[in-house]
């Protein structure tokens, strides 16, 4: 197997809006590379809408709410546009071909993040936490590196953003979505000619206890197949 995807549980929880922010980030990032999963999520959203549509308490009218809304749109009739102007002072360098949601999260670009070396061939840039307690980070593996066998605590999600890596279960390319649970040990390695950039989200609370050990466990994989 070379391609790994979030399964129906992940996609339906995404469509229902019950995934945590950081998990939704991983799924949403995967969609930038995977039309099939995006389509499935869109169908799963229709499934939710179907139930949404059957909810009935039709007798209840809400003239006051309508008046509030009408007076709001009368004050602001312009159907405001999205797309806020981008004003990045720093030039964006590094990996530029990234999904929109990642670019929104790191408008400064990957090179301007604060990277820390956590091993001879592996670096981490911690990103700001989203609306939950999971820690969000980018990991960079140098070409030709091998991360030694490792285990980890809690659930970890990895989405490959650039390059590739492999472990005993397969080879992973941009967009591949991997989840590894506690107790699942593996040792990822990269090919000799390109570095690998990954988004990782892990359950462990953002505390610096066991910092070093935990950060050596970035590339964790458990395949979720269709």
């Amino acid at each position: 197997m070379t391609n790994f995807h979030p399964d129906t549980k992940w996609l339906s929880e995404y469509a229902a809006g019950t995934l945590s922010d950081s998990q939704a980030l991983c799924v949403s990032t995967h969609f930038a590379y995977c039309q099939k999963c995006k389509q499935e999520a869109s169908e799963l959203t229709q499934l939710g809408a179907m139930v949404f549509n059957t909810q009935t308490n039709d007798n209840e009218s809400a003239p006051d709410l309508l008046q509030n809304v009408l007076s709001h749109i009368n004050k602001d009739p312009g159907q405001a546009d999205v797309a806020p102007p981008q004003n990045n002072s720093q030039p964006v360098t590094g990996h530029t071909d990234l999904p929109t949601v990642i670019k929104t999260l790191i408008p400064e670009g990957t090179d301007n993040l604060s990277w820390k070396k956590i091993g001879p061939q592996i670096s981490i840039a911690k990103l700001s936490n989203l609306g939950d307690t999971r820690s969000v980070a980018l990991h960079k593996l140098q070409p030709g590196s091998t991360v030694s066998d490792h285990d980890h605590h809690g659930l970890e999600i990895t989405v490959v953003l650039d390059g590739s890596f492999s472990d005993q279960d397969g080879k992973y390319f941009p967009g591949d979505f991997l989840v590894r649970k506690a107790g699942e040990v593996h040792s990822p390695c990269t090919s000799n000619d390109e570095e690998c950039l990954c988004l990782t989200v892990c359950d462990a609370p953002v505390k610096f206890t066991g910092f070093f050990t935990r950060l050596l466990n970035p590339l964790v994989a458990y395949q979720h197949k269709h």
Partner: protein
Amino acid sequence: MTLGVNPDENQSEFGTARTQTPSGYSMHPDHEKPFDEWAETIEHIAVNQDREAFTRLFNHFCPKIKAYGMALKSHHTSPEMADELVQDVMIKVWQKAKYFNSDKARASTWIFAIARNCRIDYLRKLKRISSPLTADDLWPVFEEPDPVSVMDLARSSAQIEQVVNTLPAEQITVLREVYIEGKTHAEVAKQTGLPLGTVKSRLRLAMDRLRSALPA
């Protein structure tokens, strides 16, 4: 997975910016039942800023959005929150109407997605959670669609409407818990005593039924 797709091209589930008047549009109230009359209404609002049409749309969806707000299993749930949700959602519908495209989404799916995102953002506000990404960043609704994902939904709208009536009660119950009450699969399993796999398989069965009504 497709390699080599430019990830920047889009992130959107539905909709696209619409600037031109949809051709052949008719807003006659006794218009013979269109495939998705609310889709036409939203497109009409986008072009004409018609407050009367908006009022009809409001009166139809307000009870559904309110029920969606009240159904959330959270100690934050209250009639006030549900009323706020109705207002947030309908203001957004007005502001973003031009991003709606009936070729890509049904009106109710689009409004459900907006309500979902508003409910997520509203809960964050109540819980005083700050995040660099909004629900619309993580669950995009308003951006450019993928040309590949074009589905002629309007044509099969009537069949989709019927699907829900054909589902067994046990599937409807799971759908309601997952989508409307905002429970994770694990929470549904724990509260109902069903195995986790059963929750997922009921959802899949309902999905298969829906797919059979979707255009190939």
